[in-house]
């Protein structure tokens, strides 16, 4: 060690070898698609959090009676209502699929890059399919 700050950078692998900890990707040096997807997981999470307000509004409206129910039914049928619902559906399925991969990653599986390349495509495909399927069922 040449610098005292290196002490923070030392770790052990699971088999006990001493290693320098990897540095996280630095946005000013490079950016790749998986970093964008990771940010996307956080952004969609926050978007869904805002969407829960409409879920609560819906439940409160159903409990409050026919007039309040008519109000939220009207709002969700305006163009803005449809746009919000579509955005939340897509955000929800994206967050859902990436979330499943995170749970798998937590078990230490599927970390190698070829698998990440494939799971990324599966996530994007599944998000599109689930979103379209949701709207197909809702509108028919």
């Amino acid at each position, binding site marked *: *060690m040449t610098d005292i700050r290196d002490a*923070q950078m*030392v770790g052990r692998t699971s088999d006990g*070898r*001493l*290693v*320098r900890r*990897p540095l996280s990707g630095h946005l000013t040096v490079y950016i790749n698609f998986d970093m964008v997807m990771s940010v996307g997981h*956080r952004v969609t*999470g*926050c978007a*869904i*959090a805002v969407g*829960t*307000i409409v*879920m*609560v509004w819906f*439940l*409160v409206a*159903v*409990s*409050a*009676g*026919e007039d309040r*129910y*008519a109000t939220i039914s009207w709002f969700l049928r305006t163009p803005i209502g449809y746009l919000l619902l579509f955005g939340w*559906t897509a955000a*929800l399925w994206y967050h*859902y699929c990436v*979330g*499943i991969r*995170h*749970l798998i990653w*937590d078990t230490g599986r599927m970390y190698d890059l070829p698998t990440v390349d494939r799971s990324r495509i599966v996530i994007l495909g599944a998000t599109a399919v689930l979103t379209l399927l*949701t709207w197909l*069922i*809702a*509108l028919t």
Partner: protein
Amino acid sequence: MADAKGLKIDTMRSYLGRARGLGTAKGGFNHWWMQRLTSLALLPLTLWFVWSLTHLAGAPYATAHAWAGKPINAILLLALIAATFEHMQLGVQVVAEDYIHTKSIQWTVVVAVKAASALLALAAAVAVLKIAATTG
């Protein structure tokens, strides 16, 4: 990962001694674990909720009321509400802690999000209970 050659470590130091001061030993695990537990609960609950909503789309008031008031649906709605808002406030807390660098603003946002989540969850739960209580 860089190789370990050239790293000199005082191996006489205990692991505890090396770890001390390098990170938290407080509630970090519980936060991480609750995030995972709630996400597992939300996998089936979300599927059920979205599936139900696609069938409720455009339904008249009486249909929506009867659906939410059915005991099995009321139970699943309460579970969904609990898991959703717990998961949500844990997640937004991480985002706030990562991106808001002014401690006082960060603290205010985290507490405000937790309070808002709790109130939204309670409002939704009371609504579900009221619907269930008025369903004959």
